[in-house]
């Protein structure tokens, strides 16, 4: 029925500041930056990757001033949930490079069964994760699943 996810979206407080962060610090690129009159259609993406992320402001008339205030309140409290997950070949190196640029981390690189990952905050409170796949792919084989079932009775 569907082919792919083409766009996802995050809320920000300021679109120019979002470009400074996502393009200037994280190295993403602007895909569309169009003044539609009623809104600024701003999308970003990872160079070479098809997916785009809409950088949207919560503001009237799309939502009421009251609702926009609630969104901004939740956003800056870090309560809006996961923005998206970026993949990298080297999580620790990325952590060092972004730390040097003053990017705020909410989790240091951590080894996990699914790879190595860490987490950052964007300037507004969005939770963005950075993940490095494990060196050996396909570790959870049928054999592993069988062993887990046996171990767990």
């Amino acid at each position: 029925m569907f082919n792919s996810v083409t766009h996802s979206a995050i809320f920000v407080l300021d679109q120019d500041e979002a470009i400074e962060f996502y393009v200037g610090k994280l190295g993403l690129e602007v895909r569309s930056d169009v003044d539609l009159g009623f809104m600024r259609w701003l999308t970003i993406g990872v160079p070479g990757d098809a997916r785009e992320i809409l950088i949207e402001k919560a503001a009237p008339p799309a939502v009421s001033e009251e609702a926009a205030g609630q969104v901004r309140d939740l956003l800056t409290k870090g309560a809006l949930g996961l923005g998206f997950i970026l993949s990298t070949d080297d999580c620790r190196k990325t952590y060092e490079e972004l730390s040097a640029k003053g990017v705020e981390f909410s989790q240091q690189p951590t080894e996990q069964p699914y790879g190595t990952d860490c987490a950052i905050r964007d300037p507004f409170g969005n939770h963005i994760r950075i993940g490095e796949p494990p060196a050996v792919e396909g570790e959870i084989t049928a054999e592993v699943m069988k062993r887990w079932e046996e171990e767990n009775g």
Partner: protein
Amino acid sequence: MTSDEASPRGRGQATERSNRWLLRARDAMDRDYAEPLDIPALARLAHVSEGYFIRSFQATFGETPHRYLQRRRVERAMALLRTSDRSVTEVSLAVGFNSLGTFSRTFHAIVGESPSAYRRGRVPQPVPSCFAMSWNRPATGLRIPDRQRSVSDKPASALKP
């Protein structure tokens, strides 16, 4: 108060700045829970005085910074108890507690059972750590989801052989 803060939108912006600075301090607790974090350092991250930091953190996130850090450390201890074979003492030090006694009291007060009783029967959870950290951080009081409870409704002491 600046003229900016006299309008509703200005007050909203002031709240949003405050939220974001407090979130920076909360992130520091999530990131560096194993370090000897203190209120003065966290208050500096939030650009406010110590007293105001404690009050505004509680107003914003629903609990004091000290309590937030305790529950973060206990959550990380719960994860280590589930996924490693390190001793309870090692776990307590690894998550930032200075003494086993304080760790055990805090853990029991928050989780409702002792660290060693909690460890029995738990298995590793195959989900990204951030979600484990968010969703396993023990709730205030004893509102632990049913599947997280001890294997019996009896007090943990009754489970000992």
